[in-house]
């Protein structure tokens, strides 16, 4: 697994963890620990996503903001 894949896996893991806390908060909306953990996972996922995108290109078209080239088409597809 190269660096790109390793970082992508971290992005996926923390995005998943954010969704887990999201589901938990659906039924425990005022749980202090849950709120704190959700924020921590969300912040980490955003941080890792920004790092990934700065190195390897956009993860979604919203973040394909290169004014000179739509580099969304240059980064490898998931199956590449």
């Amino acid at each position, binding site marked *: 697994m190269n660096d790109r894949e390793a970082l992508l*896996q*971290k992005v*996926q*893991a*923390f995005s*998943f*963890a954010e969704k*887990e*806390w999201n589901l*938990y908060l659906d*039924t*425990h909306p005022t*749980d202090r*620990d*849950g709120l*704190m*953990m959700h924020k921590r*996972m969300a912040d980490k996922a955003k941080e890792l996503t920004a790092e990934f995108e700065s190195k390897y290109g956009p993860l979604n078209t919203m973040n394909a903001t290169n004014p000179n080239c739509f580099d969304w088409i240059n980064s490898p597809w998931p199956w590449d």
Partner: protein
Amino acid sequence: MPYANETKALEMPLVGYAYVPIQQAESRNLFDPEYGLKQGTIFPILNKPLGVYGHQYKGDVIFEDGGM
């Protein structure tokens, strides 16, 4: 009842209604995100893979390492 700490019985269940016990608040013993992604959850209490689901109710010991 095995895993008694997992759930809190409903006081007044209505006949004809299905119930799913609410997950007890916990943020201590969690899977780390990467292991959780593989398992499908970060909450050990919800970690019921195939071959485990259903057996726990009969009190079978599933996880040797003391997991739920």
